[in-house]
């Protein structure tokens, strides 16, 4: 019995298939990017308390998200606006130790080096305002921020992930007045079947019709 061709055939497949499968699973932004959760300076910033429990609007701190290509992280003055000693009154639960680094930073006029989590590469341009104003909820790209004590990356931010939405935007659009209302978006909008989503007469299809233009999917839409 001539076993050489059989052995070669099985051997080559046994060597090549794991490599392909490994590349397919591991060599993706989905594997390497999702779940990125760096340790923030000092005691960090708890989104679960601020955006979730206290119900603060995202735009109280991230003031430029509707106006600028760049979604800003607030300066220390924004934090200090509430966390100045004695300002929140006796009912405030934040202990002095937890917020002391804010007061120190304010006193010495030094910025707090918050660590960036959601990074789009230099060769891709991402206008944040265009997306928020079109009705893409914070939730779609950043996940349930209002439930995160420490923020982690929720989506892969790969080019395929961008194009997935650009090609079928209606599945991710929400009514514009609800863009930052994360509880509502999760439960009342995305919690329902797409055919049942209605808010003040607006359906996903109707929302798509309100867009100034269809989301572009040519190269130079982002790479220029």
């Amino acid at each position, binding site marked *: 019995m001539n076993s*050489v061709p059989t052995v070669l055939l099985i051997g080559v497949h046994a060597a090549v298939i794991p490599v392909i499968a490994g590349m397919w699973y591991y060599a993706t932004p989905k594997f390497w990017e999702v779940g990125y959760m760096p340790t923030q300076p000092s005691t960090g910033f708890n989104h679960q308390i601020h955006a979730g429990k206290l119900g603060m609007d995202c735009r109280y701190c991230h003031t430029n998200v509707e106006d600028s290509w760049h979604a800003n992280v607030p300066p220390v003055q924004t934090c200090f606006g509430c966390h100045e000693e004695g300002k929140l009154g006796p009912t405030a639960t934040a202990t002095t130790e937890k917020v002391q680094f804010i007061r120190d930073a304010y006193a010495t006029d030094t910025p707090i080096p918050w660590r960036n989590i959601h990074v789009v590469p230099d060769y891709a341009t991402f206008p944040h305002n265009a997306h928020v104003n079109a009705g893409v909820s914070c939730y779609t790209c950043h996940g349930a921020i209002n439930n995160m004590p420490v923020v982690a990356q929720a989506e892969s931010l790969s*080019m*395929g*992930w961008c*194009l997935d939405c650009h090609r079928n935007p209606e599945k991710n659009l929400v009514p514009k007045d609800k863009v930052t209302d994360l509880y509502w978006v999760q439960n009342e909008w995305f919690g329902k079947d797409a055919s049942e989503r209605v808010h003040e007469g607006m359906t996903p299809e109707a929302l798509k019709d309100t867009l100034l233009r269809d989301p572009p999917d040519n190269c130079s839409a982002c790479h220029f």
Partner: protein
Amino acid sequence: MSAIQPDESLARRMHGLQPGEQPVARSTPLIPGTSDDGTLSEDTGKRAPCVLGDRSFEDVTNIVCGYAEAKMPKPWLAALTITSSIAALGTGMILYLIITGVGVWGLNNQVDWAWDITNFVFWIGIGHAGTLISAILCLLKQNWRTAVNRSAEAMTIFAVVCAGIFPGIHVGRVWFAWFLAPIPNSNGIWPNFRSPLLWDVFAVSTYATVSLLFWYMGMIPDVATLRDRAYMRLTKGVSRPMAIPMPIGNDIIVPQLPKPDQIRVLIYGIMSLGWRFSSRHWHRYEKAYLILAGISTPLVLSVHSIVSFDFATSIIPGWHTTIFPPYFVAGAVFGGFAMVLWLMIPLRLILPNFSDLLTKRHLENMAKILLLTGTMVGFAYGMEFFIAWYSGNEFEFSVFANNRVNPAKAPYWWAYWTMIFCNVATPQLFWFRKMRQNPLVIWIVASFVTVGMWFERFVIIVTSIHRAFLPGEWHMFFPTWVDILTFVGSCGIFMTLFLLFLKFLPVFALAELKVVMPQSHTHDDH
């Protein structure tokens, strides 16, 4: 191709074969006082012999396997030393390019394709001779092809290897070259299926795959011969595992250190895929060979047609012409045969035993093909120019007149006229029998043609794009030292691979050679 008669005397006497035993090359030509080896007779009633020197089947086997089993002659070693140094230089240049970026080449905003694509088209064109010889000449039952088909196919593979380097490295960020392949990816995009550059990827990779399969499949019986000869020598006891007797218990068996024959048995054994010379094996082999020849035949035409689409489907004057596909195919066969001749003639000197198998008739036949295809290429040059004038398209005519032909206006006029001289003028020598029967003349013409075919691609690419419609878009191309050494290095890679092929693989198709020998036609007299 017909049934192979088992060579009994060969099978019997293989047991007695010692490594290094080689037949001696005949030093005197068959016809005294001439340089004719007896194959150049013009007697039309007699077929020129394909194998000289009254060789037996066994002799032919010994000749072909001899170099793989014994030490190579000194000129081979000298040639390998030189070419492998050049290959190392080329590899260094490629690494330098990858590490530094394509800025080390002389490309600029106007001339954004230059030596890289010139070299690509040059090498891919050279590969065409192998497929033509192995596929089309096989289907046309041209017996003389048996002496050159294996080495021409090998040359094809190595030329495609060199061709593949250049598009791969010219993209700049080599690690993204996989974007060329239609692989589902996390970018959510596919290559542009409307672009001839993508068709080119498919054409060249199909061509490389089919050529490799054809070459390898044809080699299996001959590799099995090498395996069996090595195995016979081993079982004769030349190198047997050693047993050390132990006072208690079993003896310890010490396998001997790997000798060349043991390595040969292992590697040739795997490569020959269990070939046992059975009739059933031969039957399937011949069927598969014909099928592959059938698949390869359209590839001879398609590959270079699609390479020409890279240019012809663009709207650049000088590229946008319908004559490009046939013109490129003729040029590719022309350049390929020039390279076959350029390699075969020194091969007869470096490995003299092969000169009985590779006769002057073979060289003359290929010189005739060179004359034919060279004239076709010359016709294409003329027709291209004629259409540029006859079409009334002043932009296209300007590319020819002002960018290529006219020494007063075209800075690259010398490249155009070098091309014309090398490709159109020099092969005309082969109208004379004395010229096409003289290996030295053939070799010199083949060198000219190889240079000319490189210049043809340079002329097409650079002279067309170095001047766009506005004078502000006029720019010259000057190669840098990296450009030059990368091309020289690719020649080194090509020749190193070819020299290694001469040493380690069967250079002739044994079964096919034996079929064209007189012993296979014992009933010719009635």
